[in-house]
């Protein structure tokens, strides 16, 4: 018995230390995560089972730049992890898309948006309610605007749109996406990219 233990112990030690090292590395340096959903397409596409490299070193000094793709905990559900683009930093003035309002980002907060919101007026990206309605009723641009207005009066559209654009405390940040590492034909850098004319920085 003792001999079997003595034989297995170096391997067990190696596994334990390897596990500790891997976990610490994933928490503090970089890890790989998979993408789900469409809010960041075409930058990150969940349907192709993409895996992205999330680097954590930005968290040491909270050194984020406008236009970074970041990973954060959802303010509505602490168990959910979101991937969005950081549009504005504390002190910036931003134009909120849905109601033309201009808002200043308070201290310690930032504004994040999914890429898909900027790209299309197709309400498919705005959540299940709007998607089904647009599929049924579509599709002139004017009609879309009418549908959106009606839904926002009922409070339904606004809810699903704000899921894609959020003001969140910087403390929820979990990392920054730098590359897509899988599948092999989609390996590439994820670039910084800012939507035009949305913010005025201090």
């Amino acid at each position, binding site marked *: 018995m003792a001999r079997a233990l003595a034989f297995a112990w170096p391997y067990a030690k190696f596994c334990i*230390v390897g596990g*500790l*090292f891997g*976990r*610490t590395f994933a*928490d*503090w340096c970089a890890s790989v995560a998979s993408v789900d959903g469409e809010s960041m397409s075409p930058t990150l596409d969940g349907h192709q089972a993409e895996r992205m490299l999330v680097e954590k070193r930005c968290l040491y000094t*909270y050194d984020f730049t406008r236009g970074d793709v970041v990973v*954060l*905990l*959802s*303010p*509505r*559900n*602490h*168990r959910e992890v979101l991937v969005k683009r950081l549009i504005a930093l504390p002190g910036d003035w931003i134009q909120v898309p849905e109601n033309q309002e201009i808002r200043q980002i*308070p*201290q*310690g*907060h930032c504004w994040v948006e999914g890429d898909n919101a900027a790209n299309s007026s197709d309400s498919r990206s705005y959540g299940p309610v709007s998607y089904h309605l647009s599929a049924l009723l579509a599709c002139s641009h004017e009609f879309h605007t009418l549908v959106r207005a009606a839904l926002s009066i009922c409070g339904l559209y606004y809810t699903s749109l704000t899921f894609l654009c959020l003001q*969140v*405390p*910087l*403390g*929820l*940040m979990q990392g920054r996406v730098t590359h897509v590492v899988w599948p092999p034909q989609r390996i590439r850098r994820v670039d910084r990219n800012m939507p035009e004319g949305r913010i005025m920085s201090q």
Partner: protein
Amino acid sequence: MGTYNLLWSIAKRNVTTVLLGITISDRCVNIISVTGESMHPTFTAADRVLQGDFVLAERRCLEKYEFSHGDVILFKCPSNHKELFVKRLIALPGEWVQLPGSPKVTKIPEGHCWVEGDNAARSLDSRSFGPIPLGLVQGRVTHIIWPPSKIGQVERKMPEGRISQI
């Protein structure tokens, strides 16, 4: 050659200890020094790190987010992500909190919670910055471990009649 082997084994042992230390402090338990007056008398009012109480903050609760009303929790301040605050958890998502001194009642949105300091007069808490996302919580304070006169468990305490669930 012998020296090299000795140095290597020392290095290995140190690295393993460091890794173990980091993992324990990230995932199990952490020792924090509490400064400031917002939790008086639960924690001593102190200005400097060495004068404050040292407390044990357990991080296992984060895996399941099992918090009860009256727990003392550690969280990142919403208006300054580099600072950690220690306050008492008063209300969980979906509950209604009555702001003291006014008839207004606020509902805590999903994924958020309401925190307040025990020393209401000198505490910067949810009464100023509103409910905080649960994702900002970094741990739960369970015991005071220094000074020796205060060693013991940190009790759960709730102020009367502040919350209601509908």
